[in-house]
């Protein structure tokens, strides 16, 4: 027992040391280094989602400015936030999604975009120039965008299906189309609870406990018919025939449907769904902010923006790029949905984020 006490005391002492260390770090000053257009101040450390950037664009930028670009990759916003959130990460430019931008702004982790250094920011389409997560797009510039919806194997479902979230949640529809055990949902509290909220006719940013409880009941009821909660492989599962309907992001479905042998469809259900935007932002403690802004400007160029979309098949928020984008990409309703009216951004709900995570945990406990 005394040994235990000694250990506890030891840990206690170190905890106090840690606290002292935590208090020691002083606040960041608000004056950022000013950059001119095309100015570089060293090699760029770029932190991006994987398979999201055309390597040819990086090569072109390197040749043009005589700097080296080091690109590292992250699998999720949360992982990226974990790393840059504690400071001293060494990265210059990151690509956070919408709600993450607002978190990074609130925590003072990203710096305002210097319009002087990024004149191409004017190329961003009207729709993305004043997003709810960053009013006036002061801190970020849109990179690519897409939607979250339902991908379905029409062959296995036996013909056309109603465009509703009910395909994922409704027992009768599951019965009718033989979907039981053939459904996958995203393993993401905001997206999954959000889909259930939309199904019930609520906002996917609801902060009402009763609405969330209803959504929780919907998921809890559906768990028995769900094959997997999966945020990575949902589209492969459909194409492989392991599932018939999947909940996921537009681009991934599109990519994999090309490989399948059945007929497939992806749609955002009539009840509405998520629209997401990934954005470029420069970290407040970026070691090379000027190179970062130069690269941001480079990617916002009309030709380069189009090249990016032609490469990764996600929609471009770059209005000026549109004439240069392949017609088959522009005409694809999965990449560029026709009806944008019922799409909603996921917004950070502050303390209520905990409720979303808890609700999903309870629904499947």
């Amino acid at each position, binding site marked *: 027992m005394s040994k235990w006490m000694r250990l506890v005391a030891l840990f206690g002492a*170190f905890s106090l040391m840690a606290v002292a260390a935590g208090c020691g770090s002083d606040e960041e000053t608000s004056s950022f280094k000013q950059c001119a257009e095309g100015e570089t101040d060293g090699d760029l450390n770029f932190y991006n989602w994987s398979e999201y950037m055309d390597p040819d664009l990086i090569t072109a930028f390197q040749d043009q400015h005589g700097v080296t670009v080091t690109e590292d990759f992250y699998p999720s916003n949360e992982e990226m936030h974990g790393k840059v959130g504690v400071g001293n990460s060494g990265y210059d430019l990151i690509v956070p999604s919408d709600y993450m931008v607002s978190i990074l702004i609130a925590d003072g982790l990203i710096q305002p975009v210097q319009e002087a250094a990024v004149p191409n920011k004017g190329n961003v389409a009207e729709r993305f120039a004043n997003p709810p997560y960053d009013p006036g797009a002061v801190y970020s510039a849109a990179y690519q965008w897409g939607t979250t919806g339902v991908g379905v194997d029409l062959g296995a479902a036996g013909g056309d299906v109603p465009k509703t979230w009910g395909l994922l949640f409704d027992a009768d529809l599951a019965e009718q189309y033989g979907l039981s055990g053939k459904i996958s949902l995203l393993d993401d509290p905001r997206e999954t609870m959000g889909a259930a909220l939309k199904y019930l006719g609520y906002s996917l940013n609801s902060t009402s406990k009763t609405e969330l409880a209803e959504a929780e009941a919907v998921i809890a009821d559906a768990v028995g018919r769900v094959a997997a909660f999966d945020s990575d492989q949902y589209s492969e599962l459909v194409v492989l025939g392991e599932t018939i309907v999947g909940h996921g992001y537009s681009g991934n479905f599109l990519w994999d449907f090309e490989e399948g042998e059945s007929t497939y469809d992806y749609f955002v259900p009539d009840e509405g769904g998520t629209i997401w935007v990934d954005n470029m932002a420069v970290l407040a403690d970026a070691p090379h902010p000027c190179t970062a802004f130069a690269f941001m400007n480079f990617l916002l160029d009309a030709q380069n923006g189009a090249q990016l979309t032609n490469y990764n098949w996600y929609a471009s928020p770059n209005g000026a790029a549109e004439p240069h984008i392949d017609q088959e990409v522009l005409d694809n309703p999965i990449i560029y949905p026709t009806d944008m009216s019922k799409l909603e951004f996921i917004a950070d709900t502050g303390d209520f984020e905990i409720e979303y995570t808890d609700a999903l945990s309870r629904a499947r406990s």
Partner: protein
Amino acid sequence: MTEVATPGLELQAERAESRRGFLLGLPAVVYLVVFFVIPLGIVIAYSFATRTRTGRTELRDWNLEAYERLGESVVRAVAFRSLWIAVASTLICLALAYPLAYFISTRKPATRNLLLVAVMIPFWSNFLIRTYAWRVLLDSDGLFTRVAAEVGFGDGRILFTNKAVILGLVYGYLPFMVLPLYAAIERIDWSLVEGARDLYASGWAAFRRVVWPLSKPGVIAGSILVFVPSFGAYVTPAILGGNKKGLVGSYIVDQFMDARNGPLGASLSVMVLAVMLIGTLVYFRQGGRNL
């Protein structure tokens, strides 16, 4: 011990010996204090800290809220499910690894090394890729599924069930059972077994009374090495189990990542660590007595 004339001298020698032991362990002590104990202290501090609105953990307004939440039924359900899955994985690993370790130990030295390395090689590919390969083996027309169906296990489908999770864990951590078992069995003095066989005449009795007790440190080490990561696993349950039923590992990750709730993630970690620590100590006491 042998008698020494002057007790003072003996004490001095003992002290010198003790100092030597300490110095030998010192590099590891220093290393672990800096790169483990202090970081752990920070996590413990986190568990009493406060989550800001944006999900930062700030070391102020110390509170026990995160610990109060450990009493919730979700946490209990998740903990018990993780527990039985980890126990099952450990037992299956032991049953598979013991005969294998025994077999390897009875080969000649060169063959032994080759066989041992052959155990490890698959694990130098990538954990995630191996687990995905299992997904291919286990899917509807996967090889495993078809063989299982032929042999008569219904339709042979186990993907996205707890069985698939256990299979994945057993596969993932089996080498951690084989290695310590081999290390323990390999050095058994077989003349003891010879003597035992003369005494008991039955190979089984000789095994039970001589080989098994002598291999026990390996069994204990192996069991810990398998049980612990199985209990905290979250990648395997996600890929092979479809993440339908929460487990401790994924629950902790959800807190740190999705909810950005550092204090709860930290208090859960501290709880798991405490449970593991107590379990390990008890297990060791038990094993120690039987040696």
